[in-house]
């Protein structure tokens, strides 16, 4: 049992930190521009695909460095020539725009890279077991993933708290309206933040691609989850996003690790149902079965009972 606990935690950590890399960018963008970027996970996918193409010719590490840059530039361009245009039409229009963008990017990826899964491999340098516990290896690459994520988190924290731009962004997070009056080149900052945010998503894609397989559906698998995290954590709250990411990551891996089901729950209350019952499916439910949809349940509950999220200040 102990081994399960330990590895469930480790897996939860890996997923959680990965999710945070996406969530942090999304939160930054939202804090600055009030835009919930539906296409965020699509940039994550782009990151993976660019890294794959680069790795074919220059190896993994080049991909790790340049793919996020390319994605960031793309993001900046999208902001400059797409979002900025839609901005005056209001938030709904922006949300719809990013929604369409996600749709388009998925099609574009299939157009340029084809629809089959790409054999994007982790570098041989990291193809060894970091440590072996109870007969299960923890691959060095996963350790590397954790390292990168933590590194990003620290870097982000440093930039946000120490650097001048960071201060401005902080101000924007708490008082979105005042930034405009600060006399900074706000459009430029917006473009920058969007670029950086998407680049972060790109990094996530680069390091996740080899483990979570690189295929056109990888954005949709992750997309809505990241949304859930940002909303649960509280729109515009980095700390909230961090907590929510780990929460979701651990929640899922533990739910899968567990073996409890409806029956056990009902047994607690001494209730039991015949299996030919109309709702037999319900009694048959097990936690692992529903693990991947728990976040959405959480989302709905949070929004009903605490629309500002765990640590959020404002609702819109």
């Amino acid at each position, binding site marked *: 049992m102990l081994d399960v606990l330990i590895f469930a935690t480790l897996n939860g950590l890996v997923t959680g930190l990965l999710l945070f890399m996406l969530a942090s960018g999304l939160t930054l963008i939202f804090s600055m521009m009030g835009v*919930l970027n539906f296409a965020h996970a699509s940039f994550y996918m782009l990151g993976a695909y660019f890294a794959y193409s680069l790795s074919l010719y220059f190896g993994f590490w080049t991909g790790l460095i340049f793919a996020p840059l390319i994605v960031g530039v793309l993001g900046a361009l999208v902001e400059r020539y*797409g979002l900025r*245009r*839609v901005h005056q*039409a209001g*938030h*709904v*229009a922006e*949300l*719809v*725009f990013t*929604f*369409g*963008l996600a*749709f*388009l990017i998925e*099609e*574009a990826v*299939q*157009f340029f890279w084809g629809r089959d899964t790409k054999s994007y491999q982790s570098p041989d340098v990291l193809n060894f077991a970091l440590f072996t516990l109870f007969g299960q290896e923890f691959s060095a690459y996963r350790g590397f993933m954790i390292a990168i994520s933590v590194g990003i988190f620290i870097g982000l924290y440093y930039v946000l708290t120490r650097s001048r731009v960071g201060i401005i962004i902080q101000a924007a997070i708490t008082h979105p309206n005042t930034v405009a009056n600060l006399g900074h080149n706000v459009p430029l900052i917006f473009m920058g933040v969007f670029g950086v945010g998407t680049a972060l998503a790109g990094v996530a894609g680069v390091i996740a691609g080899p483990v979570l397989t690189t295929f056109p559906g990888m954005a949709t698998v992750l997309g*809505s989850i990241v*949304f*859930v995290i940002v*909303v649960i954590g509280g*729109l515009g709250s980095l700390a909230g996003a961090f907590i929510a990411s780990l929460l979701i990551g651990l929640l899922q891996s533990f739910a899968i690790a567990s073996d409890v089901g409806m029956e056990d729950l009902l047994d607690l209350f001494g209730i039991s149902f015949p299996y030919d019952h*109309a*709702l*037999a*499916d*319900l009694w048959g*439910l097990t936690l692992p*079965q*529903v693990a*991947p*949809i728990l976040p*959405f*349940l959480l*989302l*709905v509950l949070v*929004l*009903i009972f605490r*629309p500002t999220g765990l640590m959020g200040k404002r*609702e*819109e």
Partner: protein
Amino acid sequence: MVILQTLVKKFGIWVAYLAVLLLLPQLFDSILAISIYNQMAIAIVFALSYNMLLGQGGMLSFGHAVYFGMGGFLGVHTLLMIENESVYFSVMWVPFIGGLFGLLCALFIGSFSTRKAGTVFAMISLGIGELIAASSLIFVDFFGGEAGISGDRTFGPTFFGVDFAQNIQIYYLAAIWTFIATIFMYLFTQTPAGRMANAVRDNPIRAEFIGYSARRVRFISFCAAGLFAGVAGGLFALNYEFITEENLNAATSGRVLLMAYIGGLGYFIGPIIGAVLLTLMNTLLSTYTDLWLLYLGILFLLTVMFLPRGFAGFIMMHQVAWLRGRLTSLIKPYLITGLPALVFLLGVVTLIELIHTEDETLSIWGLSLTPASVPTWIVLIAITGAAFYGIRRSLPQLREAWHAANKPDGEGN
């Protein structure tokens, strides 16, 4: 005479609408044409119901397919009940049943999701949508797993000898239902609840200061939207005689958003345009090219960026110029910009197809190109570039002409 005129003014458009619906099969009557009409009828009702949310009520939903699907599932279950004679009525009432169930779901979900509009509402709708879609694969008894459930519409009492075995019969039934649904959805916009929905969309705070609870107003439109989505679902059940999880998942929700948005939010006719357009794209364009989804995506983004009010909005834009009798002055500039724009469009599409094709020759617009040959590429790119330049050059003139046409005569802002 005058009475006649007023009558025509009042009901002419509706009579025309009904006539079009009923006469379409006279125009094309192939099996395929009929099946396209059926899709259109369903899509129109569904898209209009979505417009009640986003267009009229300002509620952006990413989970509207839930009510469509729920209506459809109960519709098919009704077919099954009719088949094994646990109930006895004509299948023509299935859309009504579907509507009731859609309403029921909306009543429940709306009771907590309409508290706020904007992002919060959108996110709740997203979550609910995912939950229902997921559970539809888990609760096999009602949803039938990924294979869905299927029935047979030819049971139960016939309607004056019509047993609805043929799709054409279903189409006429669907046409009637679509007409009724459209009328009721239109009338809803003319009621206090409908008007206040617009008011709340525009300015919820102000609405509260003239005596209305924004939440209650939203709730009412939400339920109405659920009802008609359910009707559309019922029509789906009748037409296809089966329904699966895909009909209530995020993809379907996304498609209806596209329909309503491309057609034009806020204008009653908009979603109808969108529904017809997307149905045609889905059935026709997908025959031309397997890239049709890519084109759809591009079309959608362009609409959001350049026609925020959709196609209907684009038409309505010319109202002012028309009222001021200056519409004709726009024709020439439109042509000057339109022609290069068209060339540009064709050029881009050709290039995309050329990149994509795996065959040694690509047959498009009646001419056949060889991806291998460099000259082909050069010529194509040259033409496309030239067309783009043409657009850039002529755009200012168009803008000028536009302002000239819309400039209010005499004083005013």
